[in-house]
């Protein structure tokens, strides 16, 4: 039961930020595409804007790894 709890916690730690990232990118994507249609020089900003929400899922992944390691210890 405890192992199940650890795995569930790890899954939630990466899954919830992944959903949040997906939601954020779904809003940013069309907005930045529309902006780039008018100002192509915004391509660098576009890269940054798309990459910024990914921090959430990356940190979630790190936390998930730490949870799994603590669970295994």
């Amino acid at each position, binding site marked *: 039961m405890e192992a199940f709890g650890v795995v569930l916690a790890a899954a939630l730690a990466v899954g919830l930020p992944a959903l949040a990232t997906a939601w954020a990118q779904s809003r940013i994507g069309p907005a930045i595409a529309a902006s780039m249609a008018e100002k192509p020089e915004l391509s660098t900003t576009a890269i940054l804007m798309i990459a*910024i929400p990914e*921090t959430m899922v*990356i940190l979630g992944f*790190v936390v998930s*790894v730490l949870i799994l390691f603590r669970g295994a210890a």
Partner: protein
Amino acid sequence: MIIEMARLRILGPRDRLGDVFDALQDLGVMHLAEPGAPAPGVSPVELTAAQRREQRQLRRALDHVDRALAGLGLRAGPASRAAPRATRNDFARWARLGWRMRRAVDRLATREAALQEERALILKYQQFFGAFRALLESQSRWPSATAYHVLLRGGETEALIRLRGSLRELIGDAFELYSQPLPSGEIALLIVVAAPAAPQVERILAQARVQEIPVPASYGGGALTEAIPRMLARLSDLPAELEALRRERARLGQDHGAELRRARASLADRLGELEALPLSAVTARAFVIEGWAPARTRPTIEQRLAAGFGDAVVVTEVGKEDWASEDAPVVLSNPRLFRPFELLIRLLPLPRYGTIDPTPFVAVFFPAFFGLMVGDIGYGLLLGVLALVLRRRSQPGSTLRSAAEIAGACAVFTVLAGALFGELFGDLGRRWLGLRPIAFNREEALIPFLILAVSLGAVHVVLGLALGVAANIRHHPRHALGRGMSLVMIIAIILALLAAVHVLPDALLTPAVIALLAAFPVLIVAEGVVAPIELLSTVGNVLSYARIMALGVASVMLAVVANRMVGAIGSVAVGVVFALLFHLVNFAIALFSPTIHALRLHYVEFFGKFYSPGGVRYQPFGHWTREATR
């Protein structure tokens, strides 16, 4: 680095202004600017009515020449330095040539479009005829009937049902409707109706908004069976006519291409001179031109003007205290090895003059981060091959060449990191070649990899803060002090953490905490109450480098999954195909995702500490080149 610029002031007799502009255009190093504070009696040059007229005529002629060159499929290039300076007669001749050539290429383009359209139309009829050949050939048996040829888009079966219903409603059974799908996906309809019902059917077709294709009058109109042989004969003539047009275009290019290229360059040069003229100022007898040039080119400018004008024209340097550094144009100049990475800096607004050019740091850290994220000898070698192919296919100095060279550097670091982690297409090297990791195995040693990534982040962010101190120390000492205190506090936090987990001696913990407490009030004084928030975001910046570990682990796991497909799927051959496809997908992901994240780590985490955007692009007044247009 950003090369040193000198603001130069050129003075001379007013009647030599045009000649001095010609000399400066030949030199091509001076970025012109409006003269500084106006003095009494000095006024900016205004173009005369004749010059404005000339400007309009030049623009029109340039447009004609550009369109003629584009129509002939020729690339414009700069004028030969050996060519004599163009005269007024030359410009008049080129204006006429441009107009004539533009009309000629427009005529050729119109004719070609008409022939292509005719070809497409005949091909459509050919398909139609093929679908109803037997029926159409028996058309002679219905002397009192009228035939309609209609095309429906693929999938418009409902329109067909509606059309059939409308016809039945209006004229009962006095019609025949045949439908056939065509190879193009469209549906061909042949509607045969009794001649008296023809006007009603035409009305129904118009209301249904279907595409009717009556036999064109140019092929005799009437029955399609009679027109088709004529159309097919015409179809066999069309390639020869198109070839004749191509030859005509090639001949025009051969006869006039060189002259058009010279005209393009000379017209643009003269236009550039007229546009630059208002940047100079004059008195009743003298002129003044000001602008920036790389400091090392000052002797060249002086020598060229002295050789051409003797003592009549004087070059002086405006003191640095008389101009604002943010107005000076920026030229990035880096060693050959670092130069391709200027491309990544140019994706952002240029750094201001007098600040730090981050190119050398990007050239070291960008491929290193990329390499750590991909970290596979196999993928590195593939990327290296891709970089070589791109390099071979690109022009020196082009964006593609820079991208290829950056990819080459990333490939080297990827191979090195692959050797460090013992990876060749995931765990394939380990299983087949007995490859062993030099540092650690990324599949298992997640925590060491995380520590490596965050440590690299700490080094990168600390370097950024140190550069922030260096960039601000002269002009914004308070800001530099704030950056310095952030630097001290980040180092103190790192030392305290390392001492707390017994990596460093425990004795370091107390001095690190004292340094932290001592630096905090100084930080508040220097940067204000928002400073603690900024400090927290800096700590967040360091943790953000954990993405190197996250992407690295994702990359190796995908590669391992690809390798396991060989055994997991029944047939070995199918498994190998799946594994190769999976590796291809992983390689494609490895090209994009690490690039975006390595860029983000630079632009947000690193540049945020010291980079001052807003530099003016260096645009020297010179002869026209394709690059200048870009």
